[in-house]
């Protein structure tokens, strides 16, 4: 199986990429539970999304064009991207091309739109959960007026929208 790992590395997030090594490296094999099945070998390559939509599309196209181990088999799956702003265009293309994707850090509720992102999943919960926790926190402290300064992208806007919803 050929995996694309989409991320944008910088030192404070170095853990994310490093964490892959124990499991998959570049040619590691995962033993399946059934002994009648061959091991599933993961061929992983990392592509830099730049944490933005343009970089995400370029990374996706590069991965699709890459023949990995010399065969002509196409990309099978995507791990990432990190930010929602980068995952959205990648998930759109993945839905068109039939490439499953699983993000580890994209939390925008907008990615729950299965009509558009039909091959997208994620191991981190969507923003609505943590926004609900945030709303319950300020309510429990008796606050009646709070502010949100948010980055105006899919992550920040989704967080804000969910928080406002739970404050009502």
């Amino acid at each position, binding site marked *: 199986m050929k995996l694309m790992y989409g991320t944008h590395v910088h030192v404070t997030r170095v853990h994310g990429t490093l*964490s892959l090594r124990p499991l998959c*490296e570049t040619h590691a094999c995962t033993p399946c539970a059934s002994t009648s099945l061959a091991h599933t070998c993961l061929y992983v390559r990392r592509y830099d999304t730049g944490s933005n939509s343009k970089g995400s599309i370029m990374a996706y196209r590069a991965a699709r064009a890459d023949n990995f181990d010399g065969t002509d088999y196409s990309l099978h799956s995507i791990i990432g991207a990190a930010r929602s702003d980068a995952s959205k265009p990648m998930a759109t293309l993945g839905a068109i091309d039939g490439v499953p994707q699983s993000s580890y850090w994209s939390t925008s509720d907008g990615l729950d739109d299965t009509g558009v992102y039909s091959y997208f999943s994620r191991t981190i919960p969507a923003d609505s959960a943590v926004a609900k926790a945030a709303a319950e926190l300020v309510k429990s402290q008796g606050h009646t007026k*709070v502010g949100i300064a948010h980055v105006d992208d899919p992550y920040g806007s989704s967080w*804000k929208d969910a928080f406002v919803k739970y404050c009502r």
Partner: protein
Amino acid sequence: MPPLFTPLHPLFTHVCGSHPHTCAFHSEFDPSIQVVTSGFVGGNQASAENSAVVLNSQDIRVGFVVAFDATFGYFMDKAEELGMVGPGYFWITGDGVGSAKIQGSNAKQSNGIGKMLSLGGVPGATVYDQFKADWDLFDSSAAGTALKTYAEAMWLDPHTADASHAAAEGTDLSLIGSTFFADNAPDDVATYAYDAVMQHGIGACAYKAAGGAFDTAFDGSAFYAATAAVEFTSITGSVRFLDTTGSRDPASSNFILYNWQCEGAEGLETCTQYTAGSWTMAGGWDYSGGNTPDVDTDGTPDGFRFSDNTLTSPSDSPSEIEVLKIGFLHPFYTLDGTDYIYSSSGHNNMVGSLMALQVRTRERSYKQTRCN
């Protein structure tokens, strides 16, 4: 600049700045919590600073900063300049801001700040502890050398898609092989990324067991269905996905509230990140499992300590001066006239109702201020 009467009818406010991306500011009002929001352009210093100005103009004392490291810094620096940090103010940020960023800020900004996020791995859980033990091995020379070789191959290879972003931006490989891993536990990104790979590995097994193939007969739809259907116990707990969306079931995740507390002489403070509480979908907030200092020596963690070093969240209500300002703007709605607004059938339109609520809130604040 917001219109003069914005604070009195925020439902109808939509203010756009000269820059198109500063148009996101708007205010919303409801009987339970009034939420004032201000969007800014990612990475844009002026835009992030403008958000601080906007929230300050709305007299925000309690707020969230949903940002990444750089813009969080821009916002907080401006907030400090405006006197919006320290006692009387309470700021919370999220997973976009690294703990190192908060640690690197000055103590006036960091003391009493909160950080709320979906935690990922939980120390003490069996699988996490196993992962952490392997993680620490990377500090040994053999494992460190192997990892450095891997990192150089993976980070400095030609797979960088966007030439404007260097693959190794900010990455210091010299950290590997020292005590980097022992000093830095796997963060939320690391643990969720690991589980994403696990999801695909286990999903691939299920896909193959059902007759799927990873060759020219690859069926992306069937493989996606297999990966979304897996359930497994891993670093971040019991991993499972919602049938309707493919997103991680929030009921199977861990949410945490960190609290930064700073001690020491001015300019020499030491700031520490503590766990103040946790939250689950089923149980709500639980502050019993934190590790905040037990200053009152009652044998249990004190809980969240705010920027004034008390355990009481600051007031989010306007000060007495601003109550008087309302009176100035609307001399016919003085505080003495509040009962008139409540009872008057002549002021039964929506604006009147909103103003009554607003004045009632401010009156309560006024009384609290007077009592203090």
